[in-house]
């Protein structure tokens, strides 16, 4: 049970009785609520259709529907699991690694008949949000993280294996990392200095270290990128990899997908402020600017190194920039956005070329090279550019007085390194176990004939295009 949330729920309930002084209980702001509902819908758009189109355009036409279908169904599956147990294990108080059971099946979020609602904390005192909004917002994060992994597995993975892998990895990979990074009691709980130590100890393990992750550099992108690479290793290479031509069948759709990702990412990053405030606006501009920087950086680097600036390069640069600015969005100033964007464009180009050749796994759509490499780049640079000396906002160090500060570049960078390391190890181990279980249960891959024929016909009984 989460005592802070329970206390607030009972306070909110008490307000219907005239004997209590209701002015003491802050209610959610309507503008904040409206913004967060819109932001939630924007993050949904990032998965379906944006990510589905981005990935779908990159595969051969015989596998187009299988990619769209995997993204569509995984998104739905994770959403349902989130409401059954995911939210409770990620965002209620339990241990430092795993949440509790007080919100199983989303019980305790309010009394719909009496119109009384549980409230969740934001990052400002006396500024709660409806917990049902937070549940929905975070559901879209969990769902897109699992969809991101699919890019490593496409064109040969068995559909049933995808569902088993995702259910396991979501439960034991995503949920603990989300809890470790993001669960904390909220600012209103910190009312006296004497409580600080026990309140801090109730938060997630990585949150306690003081690691900064605004919108999910570790939880979403490093997590998914590492799981994807492990999956690609255990699944094996596509038949003909390195010998046959595996050209993307529609870079037009990939460009549409990348553009919709950029659009939806404003909900992802600016929404992670949880309020319609200056922090959201800063995250919005940083998301916009860093992405444009990364597009230019990737394009010019590719032009210089490979001879031609490609559309796929520009679209990949956009995603790399979006990934890298995610942990930084509201945690750095404009200078940070410039540097993180440019760095992401160049480093992720290296991630999908030279680094990929050394790894020699068939990470088909470069989930590791873009999301893990970009996520690590962003997570580490967040620690640097959070510094007020570099235009960053620092972070609240004392939640009783809401005093901001910055522990120094080396100290903050070390927190970021530890957060990255824990996420990489945790995700890799769970992904390997999930692959083994799915392989034993149904077999990870389709057979050779089915792979050559294409997953659309074999796994789904339909064709994407009538020609």
């Amino acid at each position, binding site marked *: 049970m989460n005592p802070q949330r329970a206390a607030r729920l009972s306070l909110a309930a008490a307000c219907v009785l005239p004997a209590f002084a209701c002015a003491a209980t802050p209610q959610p702001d309507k503008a904040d609520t409206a913004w967060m509902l819109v932001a939630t819908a924007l993050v949904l758009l990032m998965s379906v259709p944006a990510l589905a189109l981005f990935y779908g355009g990159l595969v051969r036409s015989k596998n187009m529907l299988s990619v769209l279908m995997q993204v569509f169904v995984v998104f739905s599956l994770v959403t349902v699991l989130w409401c059954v147990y995911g939210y409770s294990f990620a965002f209620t108080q339990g241990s430092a690694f795993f949440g509790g059971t007080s919100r199983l099946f989303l019980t305790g979020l309010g009394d719909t008949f009496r119109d009384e609602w549980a409230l969740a904390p934001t990052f400002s005192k006396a500024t709660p949000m409806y917990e049902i909004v937070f549940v929905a917002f975070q559901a879209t994060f969990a769902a897109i993280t699992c969809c991101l992994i699919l890019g490593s597995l496409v064109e040969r993975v068995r559909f049933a294996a995808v569902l088993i892998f995702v259910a396991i990895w979501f439960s034991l990979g995503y949920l603990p990392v989300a809890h470790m990074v993001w669960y904390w009691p909220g600012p209103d709980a910190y009312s006296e200095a004497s409580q600080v130590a026990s309140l801090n100890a109730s938060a997630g393990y990585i949150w306690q270290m003081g690691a900064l992750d605004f919108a999910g550099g570790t939880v979403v992108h490093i997590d998914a990128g590492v799981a994807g690479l492990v999956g690609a290793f255990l699944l094996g290479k596509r038949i003909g990899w390195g010998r046959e*031509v595996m050209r993307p069948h529609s870079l037009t759709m990939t460009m549409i997908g990348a553009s919709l990702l950029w659009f939806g990412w404003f909900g992802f990053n600016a929404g992670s402020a949880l309020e319609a405030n200056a922090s959201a606006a800063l995250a919005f501009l940083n998301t916009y600017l860093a992405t444009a920087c990364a597009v230019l950086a990737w394009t010019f680097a590719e032009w210089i190194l490979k001879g*031609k600036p490609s559309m796929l390069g520009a679209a990949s640069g956009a995603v790399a920039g979006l990934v890298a600015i995610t942990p930084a969005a509201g945690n750095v100033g404009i200078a940070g956005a410039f540097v993180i964007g440019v760095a992401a464009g160049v480093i992720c180009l290296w991630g999908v*070329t030279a680094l*990929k050749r050394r790894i020699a796994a068939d990470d088909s759509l470069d989930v590791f090279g873009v999301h893990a490499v970009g996520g690590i780049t962003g997570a580490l640079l967040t620690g640097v550019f959070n510094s007020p000396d570099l235009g960053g906002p620092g972070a609240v160090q004392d939640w009783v007085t809401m005093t901001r500060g910055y522990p120094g570049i080396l100290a903050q960078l070390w927190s970021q390194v530890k957060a990255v390391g824990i996420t990489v190890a945790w995700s890799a181990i769970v992904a390997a176990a999930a692959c083994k279980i799915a392989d034993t249960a149904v077999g990870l891959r389709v057979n050779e004939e089915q792979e050559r024929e294409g997953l659309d016909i074999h796994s789904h009984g339909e064709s994407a295009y009538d020609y």
Partner: protein
Amino acid sequence: MKLITVIIRPFKLDDVRDALTEAGVTGVTVTEVKGYGRQKGHTELYRGAEYVVDFVPKIRLETAVPDARVDVVIDAILEAARTDKVGDGKIFVTPLDHAVRIRTGEIGEDAL
């Protein structure tokens, strides 16, 4: 009668069609094809993956002409399709035994 089969660069199709019309050709069949000759293919780069594309897109035209007009038609095609660079294509002339217009049943050169 002769069957003239022509392989040209795709962007030359309109020029060749106009030239053939001026040369008195009344019908042409056009197909999009891929092939290779002396013109090398090209490489395509998708992030880290580089693919050599050996087959170059071309247009194939087929037209049947009376023996007397073969040279005029060939000259018209040469004029219209040439860029003086490798990859301009080829003209093949083969003997044609018979022709029938399906609608009327006309045969031989009357059917062209």
